[in-house]
């Protein structure tokens, strides 16, 4: 089981690849930066991609759209959610 910092770095790499953020490097994304509107400026299509990413890479299904708002607040909140739910 990887630690949180390793997971955060891997998440950043996966998000850059999945969302085609070719102008970004993992170090450009702050752990607590907002993912939507400000910060990375992701949109609703990106939100769907993040849901797919959780399912494909971590075998985690979100229970509801409302839950997604909290989970996808930042890379840090995503990592916490994955560590809490992975393998359950």
């Amino acid at each position, binding site marked *: 089981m990887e630690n949180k910092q390793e997971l955060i770095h891997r998440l950043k790499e996966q998000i850059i690849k*999945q*969302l*085609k*953020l*070719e*102008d970004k490097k993992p170090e450009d994304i702050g752990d607590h930066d907002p993912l939507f509107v400000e910060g990375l*400026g992701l949109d609703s*299509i*990106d939100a*769907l*991609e993040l849901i*797919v990413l959780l*399912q*494909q890479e971590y075998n985690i299904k979100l229970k509801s759209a409302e839950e997604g708002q909290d989970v996808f607040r930042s890379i840090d909140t995503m990592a916490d959610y994955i560590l809490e739910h992975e393998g359950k």
Partner: protein
Amino acid sequence: MSETSMQITSAVIIREGIVVKDDSAIFRGTETGSVFLNAAYEGLDAMYPRFYKMDLLSKTGTIAVNALLKERVDLQHLPPEATGMVFSNRNASIEADVQYLEASKAYPSPALFVYTLPNIVIGEISIRYQFKGENAFFISDTFDADWIHWYVADLMQRGLLKVCICGWIDVIGEQPDACLFLVEQVPFSTGTTFTADNLRRIYNKDYGK
């Protein structure tokens, strides 16, 4: 009041390895496909964060329209409904369609799916420049200058548009092939008269690589 006429005030061509604006090469690259378009985007300082998410057709359109409008801040003062777009191509969104089909073998990607229509390029450009004028995307075997001329002239003569970005925009085998024209109703002859023959003549110019 001075008489106005429809004029082609600028034209941008994107083909393998080259971007041409009004007969001058403004970017040359040795790369092909997506790598070439990314290099052109950076080289021409197009500055639009959504660029990298786009399919090749939208990337081509974004670069071409950026080059067409770069020095035309005056057009930003027109009402959003005054500027429209009329594009055509042969291959619709086949590159994005194939990419989506291939990706779907693993999982259907929403980010790829949204580009599986050719007129998405018009949407991307409209979002960036806040254009809300008439638009259309036609499919034809080859560049049909007579049809584009008739359709755009009709929109402008009826007062529905003051400015129209029109022409050919296609991607096949990862290669962009675009020739977009900026057509305006201007008070005097500041460009090339908007005729089907002039559209054809500009489109058929060979700029090499």
